[in-house]
């Protein structure tokens, strides 16, 4: 069976029709991983032995006629999602040998479906970055151009799907970490509404912003994955008590009558002209399908980067204080308790993680708290208010996913400010707790690099953004990755 760009629904059909067995299918993916991942470096850990056992169990369910949507489907999981007995490193030396004693809730839900784990994908260390180049173990490359970054922090997941090293994957998104790598790698990724998916077992970066979501070949597969992983969880106090709809329900429905807002600040200076044109061309195509385009404004976007980094780093400084080298994780040396902790943290964390801890403690420390952290919280409220205002006149919002296509490896390594500013198109969605999906809307003319657009919805209205993404994808011919 040709697994190149295979969709979950294609694989489901092949498994149910006995064209291939679950163990054979995962074998096909491992063959491809063995052939290609030496170049892409999308996986940190490949779990062949576990996969074979999982696949044999899945095949029994299929043979008994008990298969559900993901039974026997091989998936990749970002390496910050805990799986019982499988190394979970967060791409950090700090957790190089950490083996979780429990499953994240999303893994329990996928297990209930009978999925097959291919392995754990690389990421920026502790999900802090937009390039996957801060990974301590696998600095992933973009399958469309191996000299370029795959985006991040879920760069391993996005690159694995783009290179057909997995049909779909889970990522996590704190400020764009599912959508931006999806954009760079020419795949489709959705960040659900905050609270839609349990965060239990996701190693925390910024707890008020983190959300797990799928990265797939298209919006239809994202809907299938969401059906499997959403729902209230008593282990997560921020998990929402809302009904979980069938996310495939509105797929294929016409979009005529839908209002699509285009906030002018997302198309202003700082956004690459090619990206701007590509997203606006897509907007006009959606208009031809019957949608109405609505001009609008989000003036607070100019403050979004400092607001996001102050909130995210403040939470990160607190969350990462648990890494002391005693209960788990890298252990340094020291004659005293204090020396032991300082040495463990100084040697266990990478440079970007340490910078963000310092910034977080700066924002929270006496004398700076009101000027920075509380101001950022005020901005969060203003961003939410401005989104609410836009949604009074529109059903969804359309923006570029990133200001540029994938850039060359090393280009932003020594400039953290430039790296932070590149998150401008995605961070407000996390701040406002909204759902957002990125899908490919075109390619650069010279190098064929993917360009992504983001469709942002009202809280808990993933169905409409999936509907719009699907409507776009139905008329779009994607280019395959060169690899």
């Amino acid at each position, binding site marked *: 069976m040709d697994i190149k760009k295979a969709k979950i629904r294609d694989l489901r059909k092949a498994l149910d029709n006995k064209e291939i067995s679950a163990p054979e299918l995962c074998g096909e993916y491992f063959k491809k991983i063995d052939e290609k991942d030496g170049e892409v470096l999308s996986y940190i850990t490949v779990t062949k032995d576990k996969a074979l056992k999982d696949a044999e169990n899945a095949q029994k369910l299929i043979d008994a006629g008990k298969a559900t949507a993901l039974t026997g489907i091989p998936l990749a999981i970002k390496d910050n999602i805990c799986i019982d007995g499988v190394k979970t490193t967060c791409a950090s030396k700090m957790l190089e040998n950490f083996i979780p004693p429990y499953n994240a809730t999303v893994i329990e839900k996928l297990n209930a479906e009978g999925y097959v784990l291919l392995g754990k994908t690389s990421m920026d260390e502790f999900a802090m970055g937009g390039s996957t180049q801060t990974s301590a173990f696998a600095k992933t490359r973009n399958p469309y151009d191996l000299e370029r970054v795959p985006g991040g922090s879920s760069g391993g997941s996005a690159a694995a799907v783009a290179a057909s090293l997995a049909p779909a994957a889970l990522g996590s998104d704190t400020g764009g970490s599912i959508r931006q790598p999806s954009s760079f790698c020419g795949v489709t990724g959705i960040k659900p509404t905050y609270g839609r998916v349990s965060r239990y077992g996701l190693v925390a970066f910024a707890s008020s912003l983190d959300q797990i979501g799928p990265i797939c070949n298209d919006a239809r597969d994202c809907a299938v994955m969401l059906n499997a992983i959403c729902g209230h969880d008593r282990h997560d106090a*921020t998990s929402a008590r809302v009904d979980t709809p069938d996310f495939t329900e509105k797929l294929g429905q016409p979009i005529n009558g839908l209002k699509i807002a285009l906030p002018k600040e997302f198309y202003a200076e700082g956004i690459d002209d090619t990206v701007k044109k590509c997203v606006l061309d897509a907007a006009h195509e959606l208009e031809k399908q019957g949608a109405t385009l609505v001009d609008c404004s989000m003036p607070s976007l*100019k403050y979004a980067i400092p607001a996001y980094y102050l909130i995210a780093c403040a939470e990160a400084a607190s969350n990462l204080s648990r890494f002391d080298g005693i209960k*788990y994780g890298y252990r340094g040396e*020291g004659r005293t308790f204090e020396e032991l902790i300082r040495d463990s943290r100084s040697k266990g964390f990478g440079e970007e993680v340490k910078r963000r801890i310092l910034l977080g403690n700066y924002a929270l*420390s006496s004398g700076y708290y009101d000027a920075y952290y509380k101001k950022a919280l005020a901005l969060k409220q203003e961003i939410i208010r401005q989104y609410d205002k836009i949604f009074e006149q529109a059903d969804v919002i359309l923006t570029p996913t990133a200001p540029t296509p994938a850039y060359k490896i090393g280009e932003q390594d020594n400039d953290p400010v430039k790296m932070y500013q590149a998150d401008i198109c995605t961070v407000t969605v996390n701040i406002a707790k909204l759902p957002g999906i990125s899908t490919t809307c075109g390619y650069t003319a010279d190098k064929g690099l993917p360009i992504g657009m983001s469709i942002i919805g009202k809280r808990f209205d993933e169905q409409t953004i999936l509907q719009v993404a699907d409507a776009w994808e139905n008329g779009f011919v994607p280019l395959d990755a060169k690899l």
Partner: protein
Amino acid sequence: MAVELKTIEHLCELSKLDYDEDGMKKVMGEMSDIIDLMDEIKSFDLTYDDTKDGNEIRFGDTREDVPEKSFPTEKLLANAEHTDDCYVVPKVVE
């Protein structure tokens, strides 16, 4: 705004992080640039209203207080480098 050495030293103390001399110089420069970016927020003229936040967590909606099986001790200790049926740390009191 250039960040002073004593500010970085204070942040390192709060963060339980150490840098050597070169590392300290480098991080001072980087933090100065980053804080310049963060300073843009100071021109935003609104105040935070804490009565509008925190409604996602419903503390009145907790589970029944009944004992549940916890993680096996050996499984938890397996991730610690120094153990002797408990976590081993340097002496805190001489």
